[in-house]
């Protein structure tokens, strides 16, 4: 048995309900959950894992605000400063006419920056090939828990047992790491 302090225990389940209940039970006993892998988003798993609210919303908000301000400024500059154009007798800097483009650009920059921030934060960029358990992308649910000390392994196994794990292994991802 490994004596490294950062040993991990990987438990695999075949249903959403089991992995949710197991996650809750393990966290309530004070274990640190490294991650939960599932083929789809599980409602309530963030709560069960004790995850903090996502900070991604701030990226969206700030990117949107930046997009709005920069596009409005650009439109004012092009139509009132750089090349003033009289359109239908309206003032050069006619804000209502600028809103549609500014709105679209707000959405565009908020959207693109959110996706970019998500991919960067999740370290999902081209060429990166993290080891995965192939079945968590189809029909398996995996819970990875940090083992603070090797002697707590029986306790953790006993905690998981009522939730009918299909297999439990140490030091994830031990079972045949593959690259997608």
């Amino acid at each position, binding site marked *: 048995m490994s004596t490294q302090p950062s040993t991990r225990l990987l438990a695999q389940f075949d249903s959403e309900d089991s992995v949710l*209940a197991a996650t809750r039970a393990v966290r309530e006993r004070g274990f640190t959950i490294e991650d939960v892998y599932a083929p789809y*988003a599980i*409602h*309530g798993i*963030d*709560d069960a894992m004790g995850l903090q*609210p996502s900070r991604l*919303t701030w990226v969206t*908000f700030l990117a949107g605000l930046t997009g709005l301000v920069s596009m409005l400024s650009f439109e004012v500059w092009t139509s009132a400063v750089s090349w003033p154009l009289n359109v*239908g007798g*309206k003032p050069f800097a006619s804000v*209502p*006419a600028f*809103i*549609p483009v500014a709105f679209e650009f707000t959405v565009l920059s908020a959207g693109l920056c959110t996706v970019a921030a998500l991919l960067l934060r999740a370290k999902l960029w081209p060429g990166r090939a993290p080891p995965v358990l192939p079945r968590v992308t189809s029909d398996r649910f995996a819970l990875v828990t940090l083992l603070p000390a090797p002697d707590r392994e029986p306790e953790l196994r006993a905690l998981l047992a009522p939730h009918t794990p299909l297999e439990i292994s140490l030091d994830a991802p031990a079972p045949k790491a593959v690259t997608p």
Partner: protein
Amino acid sequence: MATDTHAHDAHGHADPAAGFDIEKFTGGSQAMMIAGIVGVIGIGATLAAGEQGLEGYLTGYLYWLAIALGALVLMMAFHAAGGRWMTVLRRVWETMAGSLPVFALLFLPIALNAKKLFFWTHPEDLPTTHGFTKEQMAHLAAKSSYLNLGSFYTRAVLYFVVFIGLSQLFWMWSHKADESPSSALTRRMRRLGAGGLPILALALTFACFDWLLSLDPLFSSTMFGIYYFAGGFLSAICLTVIVSRLAQDVPNSHTAVVSPSHWHNLGKLMLAFTAFWAYIAFSQYMLIWIANLPEEITWYISRTQGAWKGVWSVLIATHFIIPFFTLLSRDLKRKPTLLSLMAVWLMSTCFLDTFWLINPAYHAEPTFHWSHLTALVGVGGVAIAFALFRIRGRYAVPVGDPYLDDSLRYTQP
């Protein structure tokens, strides 16, 4: 009966549905009495105020009518889309839409005083009273096949047939499913939800053309119906939040099964339809502002210039900018009390919006009269009392709905 259908003994008590136990709703008698008395007094005082009171009455009436219709559209849209999370809230909307019969009755003062409220009914006076030019008179005369009292009354009857007919069918089927649950009823409601929406949308749009847009008979805007609807729809969502918060400690109300996720979704709908209102309002404004056609732009000039500029600015700030940024907060949307305060705020601004639509048709400067307030509590009181009267003695949650379990268990990321 509710307990039998929905107890999940196999899952133990972890399933929220297991603890679901609701009897027929018998509360709200005091609220019904107070709302009814306040309503009757309010309407009486408004109508006793003569011609100025009539304008107040129209404002109050159209404000609350939009909410009842908004609730009907909301409920039908969820049926059409097969939405499940909102099943615990559906009866609130059915009840709000169930107040529509009383709106037919409350329409009588408007119908009887149409000649005082709508000046297109007496075009011969307009050159002197409103300074209409020859061109404007010709313009109005060209509309006379639509804008005449006979067809005005005929259409009003048609609108109420659609409004009451639809709300009544949903009411009947939904309550029938309480007693004898069947998937056939769910299917029937889904079909009527999808099939009825276009009919309701047309009736709502034309009703708003007749009763609101025709106050300025030369103005026309095809977006006007959706603008009026946007405010009512938002207010209907806000009223759902307020009602759910007020019913929190009332036994057998629906609020017992409203989870933070449901509150959160209502908050998200409030945010979305605050933005929707602004989107519609801006789209209508920008097209008219950029084209600058005399018969259209005058409508905006009389609402955004002079003393009205202040009201218009307040409307933009309080109806969009402040609530939009406030409602971005996730925490606020999950706290019923804070969310209902925001809902009260938005319902107030929606009333200001209705005032802003109607008042400039009669006055060059903002003219607030006490009858605006008596009409607001009057029509609202009578409608709320009638809705409470209808729901009392029935289940406050559609206990026979096959999606109720999904709704009770609903959580969201």
